[in-house]
């Protein structure tokens, strides 16, 4: 069965290209356009992994990650930060803020695929 990924992203161009990438990598994609939707969809869909943009209006990615980590139902879902915040220290901020891994925009399907696979592998090892 295809693994399900929740893509959290507000930029239409990025939704388009990252959506295609995830599709080619063999994942089923659900979309949330901001942090509030992300928290709700994480709880109702229980995806295998969340690809989280950080800079978003209304509720940003780190606020959303914090909420997702609080809910016992969603707290173990791996979160991959995929963001244009790429100053030194931003990776650490994302990891401290509840994300499990981090990639900086721009990325290609190769980097995205490797990061997702790494997290999913980790998770299945943890649940053994």
């Amino acid at each position, binding site marked *: 069965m295809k693994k399900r990924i929740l893509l959290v992203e507000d*930029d239409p*161009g*990025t939704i*388009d*290209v*990252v959506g*295609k*990438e995830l599709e*080619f990598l063999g994942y089923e994609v659900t979309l949330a356009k901001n942090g509030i939707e992300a928290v709700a969809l994480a709880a109702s869909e229980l995806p295998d992994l969340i690809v989280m943009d950080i*800079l978003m209006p209304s509720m940003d990615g780190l606020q959303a990650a914090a909420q997702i980590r609080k809910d016992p139902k969603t707290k173990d879902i791996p979160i991959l930060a995929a963001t*244009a*915040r*790429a*100053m*030194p*220290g931003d990776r650490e901020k994302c990891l401290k803020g509840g994300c499990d891994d981090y990639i*900086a*925009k*721009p*990325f*290609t*399907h*190769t980097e995205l695929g490797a990061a997702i696979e790494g997290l999913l592998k980790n998770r299945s090892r943890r649940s053994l």
Partner: protein
Amino acid sequence: MSRPLKAEEKSAGEKTLEQKILELERANQVKKEFLTIMSRELRTPLNTVMGYTAMIKEKLLGEINAQQEKALAKVLSRANDQLRIIQSVLYASALESGEVKTENHEISLADFLDNLRSSYKGPLDKEFKIHWDYPSDLPVVSTDSLKLRQILEHLIENAVRFTAKGRVTLSARYSPGTKTAEFKVADTSIEIPKEVVQAISEKSRQMDSSETILLLYGGVGLGLYIVKKSAAILGGEVRVESEPGKGSTFIVTIPGEAVPS
């Protein structure tokens, strides 16, 4: 009859200290937000450019011929060059606005260099070996390892990028007398223009003149501005020795008292 003026009665030109502090804080906040927004605005479109180019090149969107594949490889490579410049420009702005703070912690210099060595991936298009030369008993010092790493990575990357043949050597020594760590990145083929050598080495040189920025940013100097500025916020300095036909050596000196183990 005179009475003390209330705050709102003061003339518009006279600002209270509190107002001035508030304005400065606001200005700093705006700078910070500006950099975050610029980062997003510059990186987001590249995500589409590079994402689709890579997918087409890997034939995920259908067959392409060899010539098209080659052309797309060039697009990707140039987009990567542009990304590198965007990164440097944004980081240099952050350094310039005082946005970048240092975070010191105790690190073993030997472990730090072992780590740098094992994570270094050479350029894909060149057969290249870096020669690492440092004693295994380098001490533990208190410094900002992220920034130190960034400085050395920049220098190695520059050296490898511009060295057609020959070799690049990274050496490190600690001197207990002056309580400083010295790192040298030497190559065998780059010749650094005299003006650039001066711009890097002069301690008093104003870092905010556009002339200096241009010197340290253009061509061979790409990123040296960041190296110089970063070394300065670590309390250290950078100098360079360059000899025509022999190559260049960048010397970074960072203060740090050895922590007894």
